[in-house]
């Protein structure tokens, strides 16, 4: 098996997939901690459905490079959902549900009406579940993913303290002079970028797993925000790496294999936290 793995690692498309997969998992986990604490866990799912709708529009318009349209629409949706913060009339879960199902329905409707592809079912299935999208990346797409991921990581590190402040108590942060609206906007943009990139890795329906599971797993082991963030990143990267390796060795869909590994990781962390809690008593 090791020989086979070494042989597989020599393929360029496998190297591309691992690089992009690891970076996306890292960025998703960092933002995931903030989203989970702010009770916006399901925003990954919502925004990915918006991205699916935008992709459908781009397909109908026959755009050769649809990434920019998808990202723009997703950013606008994320701003509408997150920037309003805690004082919105339509609260987080309802807003996410409205935008999410609406975009998904309209997207699929447009693709059916205008029939832009010879294999509509395959394209939709691949976009929703991300079976092999991560293995069909071009060099330009990989470079774009790297640039955007590095940018997100740098922005997160530089604004860590402010993000921490608005995550736990937005109103208090505002009262102490923090421009919460600006940082909500920043989080919205970063989340949008990562969601669009993550669609290639796990597909639209499974993106929430990349956001939620590493953060929740880390929260069962650590109580400190910094330690949760760091361990969430480590779990996410390891799970994504192991998921991709398992997928290419066993011939299973990449997206669902990564999520399955994340679930196993969560269960292990949950049990560890449980045992540690009982022992400390």
């Amino acid at each position, binding site marked *: 098996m090791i020989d086979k793995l070494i042989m597989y690692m020599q393929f360029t498309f496998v190297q591309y997939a691992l690089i992009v997969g690891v970076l996306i998992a890292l960025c998703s986990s960092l933002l995931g901690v903030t989203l989970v604490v702010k009770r916006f866990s399901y925003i990954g799912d919502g925004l990915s459905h918006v991205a699916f709708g935008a992709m459908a529009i781009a397909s109908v318009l026959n755009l050769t490079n649809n990434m920019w349209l998808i990202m723009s629409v997703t950013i606008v949706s994320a701003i509408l959902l997150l920037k309003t913060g805690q004082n919105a009339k339509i609260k987080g879960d309802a807003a996410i549900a409205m935008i999410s199902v609406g975009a998904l329905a309209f997207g699929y409707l447009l693709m059916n009406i205008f029939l832009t592809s010879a294999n509509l079912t395959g*394209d939709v299935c691949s976009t929703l579940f991300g079976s092999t999208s991560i293995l069909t990346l071009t060099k330009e797409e990989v470079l774009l993913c790297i640039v955007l991921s590095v940018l997100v990581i740098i922005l997160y*590190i530089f604004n860590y303290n402010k993000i921490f402040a608005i995550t736990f108590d937005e109103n208090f942060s505002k009262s102490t002079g923090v421009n919460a609206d600006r940082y909500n906007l920043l989080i919205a943009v970063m989340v949008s970028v990562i969601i669009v990139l993550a669609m290639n890795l796990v597909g639209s329906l499974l993106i929430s797993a990349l956001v939620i599971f590493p953060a929740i797993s880390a929260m069962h082991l650590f109580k400190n925000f910094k330690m949760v963030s760091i361990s969430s990143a480590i779990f996410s990267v390891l799970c994504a790496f192991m998921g991709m390796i398992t997928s290419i060795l066993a011939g299973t*869909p990449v997206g669902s294999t990564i999520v399955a590994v994340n679930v196993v990781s969560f269960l292990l962390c949950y049990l560890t936290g449980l045992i540690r809690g009982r022992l400390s008593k």
Partner: protein
Amino acid sequence: MKRIISLLVCTLAIITFANCGNDKSKNKIPVKHTNAENSESQMESESGENEIIDLTLLSDTMVYGEVYTILMAPDDYIGKNIKIEGTCDIYEDDTTGKIYYACIVSDATACCFQGIEFKLSEDYAYTEQYPCLGDKICVEGKFDSYFEDGNTYYYLRDAQLAE
């Protein structure tokens, strides 16, 4: 501390960029050399004539990715022997009456399909020894291109059906 971490992240990104730019790292897929002990064949092996790119040794996920790579960068594979396992698909052009054979592979979820066209060698009697639509086949041939109706198509030339 933040600057150090950011610098580290940038350095890692630059290293990754540099690796991505390395076009010399071509896919090294399972390759068999035939008659390697024969000196004449060794010369042929050195030129790649007897190399077989055996996709049957890869998992389903890998096969789909590699076939995609072949179809996206076909010129890199011209002249190479490719062995592929999949389902036989037959297409008849209503205008010209020509019949085309292809070996189709699917991804792990079996919702996306792609394949490579093949033309069996003259050793095969048409239609008695040709595969039927939907048959599971293993075909090996030399990857080549042809020009038809103003378009370039890629296929496996002088293909043989393997067991």
